């Protein structure tokens, strides 16, 4: 058994949170039944190893592996059809993996779903509401189903700013309001692990911000969160670590800083007219109005390329207008991966 002190060493968020929360976290750890903390998965809240998933002949997920630590927010990014929802649905226990292994809190999400569902919360990508029920009735129904009821209906609605909609039939809610109701339902039981499939799709900017702060609070309280999104800003705001999926595989994973650093920095300037741009170490510029070179992840090589670019400009007596060296943004990485054939 891991001593409680060691348990939160690998929870980076805990090291910056206040002592009360550390105490709370330790209490939760200690109340877990021993059998559910098998040595293979001690530490990780979620473990995915070489997961494959197919629909008929179409292989939606082609061998992915990752781990999510307790208290961490892990974001799965990718274009539509990248395999995000399929992956999260395997974690939620809706589908069994075609091959590979998946563990959530040390349990098999499909085979042990009855035990696991008391400890996890699921926010579907859309739908799942009975339109004739009011917002309050919907929350009441799902609350009544729980063995423990840590929140009242009013508290749950207030948390997602839907208190004023309590008596409105769900059918009449906007898309963003439905997403917020869904978040309220997913978190009713104060789950240890929360799965959010595109939680802010269809929300206006204000609702999105308020949802982000709700998710932040949950993570601060020690909830482990896996979310899928195609909003890069959402991942930048919320995620401790990300995985960018494309074509059923993970193309990049790690903290945003490390994913971005791997792609290296780039230099950009207004392309001078009538001049052929140089090739640096076999790397040519992408051109439009702006010429851009990828300098690569190795700092020494990047510095060398940059020097030779400036030498070329001096030799040709050029002043490079709007000259800019910057590191890759998450958007750069995302688009490069999405456009890679």
């Amino acid at each position, binding site marked *: 058994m891991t001593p409680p002190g060691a348990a939160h060493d690998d929870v980076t968020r805990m090291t910056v949170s206040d002592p009360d929360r550390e105490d709370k976290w330790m209490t939760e750890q200690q109340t877990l039944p021993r059998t559910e903390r098998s040595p293979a998965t001690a530490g990780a809240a979620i473990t995915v190893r070489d997961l494959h998933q197919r629909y008929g002949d179409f292989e939606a997920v082609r061998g992915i592996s990752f781990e999510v630590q307790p208290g961490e927010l892990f974001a799965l990014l990718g274009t539509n059809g990248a395999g995000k929802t399929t992956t999260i649905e395997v974690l*939620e226990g*809706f589908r069994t993996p075609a091959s590979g292994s998946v563990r959530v809190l040390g349990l098999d999400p499909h085979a042990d779903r*009855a035990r696991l569902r008391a400890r996890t919360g699921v926010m*579907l990508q859309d*739908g799942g509401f009975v339109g*004739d029920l009011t917002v309050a009735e919907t929350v009441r*129904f799902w609350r009544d*189903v729980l*063995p423990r009821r840590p929140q009242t209906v009013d508290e749950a609605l207030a948390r997602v700013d839907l208190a004023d909609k309590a008596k409105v039939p769900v059918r009449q809610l906007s898309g963003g309001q439905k997403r917020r109701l869904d978040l309220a339902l997913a978190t009713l039981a104060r789950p240890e692990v929360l799965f959010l499939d595109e939680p802010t799709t269809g929300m206006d900017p204000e609702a999105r911000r308020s949802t982000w702060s709700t998710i932040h609070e949950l993570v601060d309280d020690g909830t482990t969160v896996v979310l899928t999104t195609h909003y890069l800003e959402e991942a930048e705001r919320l995620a401790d670590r990300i995985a960018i999926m494309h074509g059923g595989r993970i193309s990049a994973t790690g903290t945003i800083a490390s994913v971005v650093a791997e792609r290296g920095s780039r230099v950009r300037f207004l392309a001078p007219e009538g001049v052929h741009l140089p090739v640096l170490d076999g790397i040519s510029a992408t051109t439009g109005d702006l010429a851009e070179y990828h300098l690569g992840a190795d700092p020494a090589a990047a510095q060398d390329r940059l020097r030779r670019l400036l030498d070329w400009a001096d030799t040709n007596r050029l002043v490079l207008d709007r000259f800019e060296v910057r590191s890759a943004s998450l958007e750069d990485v995302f688009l490069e991966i999405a456009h890679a054939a």
Partner: protein
Amino acid sequence: MLLEHTLKVARLDFTVLLRNRTAFFTTIAFPVLLGGMTLGLDEGVVEGLPVGLYLLTGMLALVGFFVTFAYLTSLFTVRREDLVLKRMRGSLLSEVAILGGSGLTCTVIYVVQAAVVVTIGVVGLGGAAPRNVPLLLLTVVLTSIMFVPLAAALSGVTRTGESAQITVLPVLLVLAGTSQAAFPLGDMPELVQRLSAAMPLSPVVDVIRIAYFGRDFTDGTAPYPAVGFAESWSAAAPGLLLILGWTVVGVLFARRYFRWEPRNA
């Protein structure tokens, strides 16, 4: 936990049913209309029975078809397409509680409807009270249970709530036609009679009439022999077994055809 969850789902369904006009018509208004239809029929004899009561007992079985089978086929289809079933299945609710809760609502409504229809028979048509009320009640309950998995199976091949009307209709025609609910099949060829007798609604009609009239309608032709309270149970036994048999078949079909997630997913 299972019972509690089943009751919660049943309560949810009842709330929704009272708010939804189509559902209200299918399960509350239409069945009473079916029973009421027989009120004008106070002359004539079919199979040794007053025609009004003959039809009324047949309608008693058909009411179960509408309240349980037709309603649930549409409900399960709509809930699947709206992802409600998926959400429920992703919760602590067990599969039995999800489907059984909706079934329970129908069972309760069917029992109440049956009481209303029987009252129409006794008061409106001047018939005697049913001879074997417990048997009648048991049949109503078992029939309702039988239709739950059968409806789940049919919903699996039904695209939308609207198309449920199309998939249910042929089933209605076959079951109503073979059950002798409205007309006897005594003049049909032997093979047709035997096949008809094996269909799901046929034993329901038979056992309801045994319970209501205290006569064994499975024994030869009219006039059918009178049976006492105890004998009516044994006369009903083969029919009850057939209802249970169809329940098992329904479960097997449901395992094969029922879907938790939208058909186009």
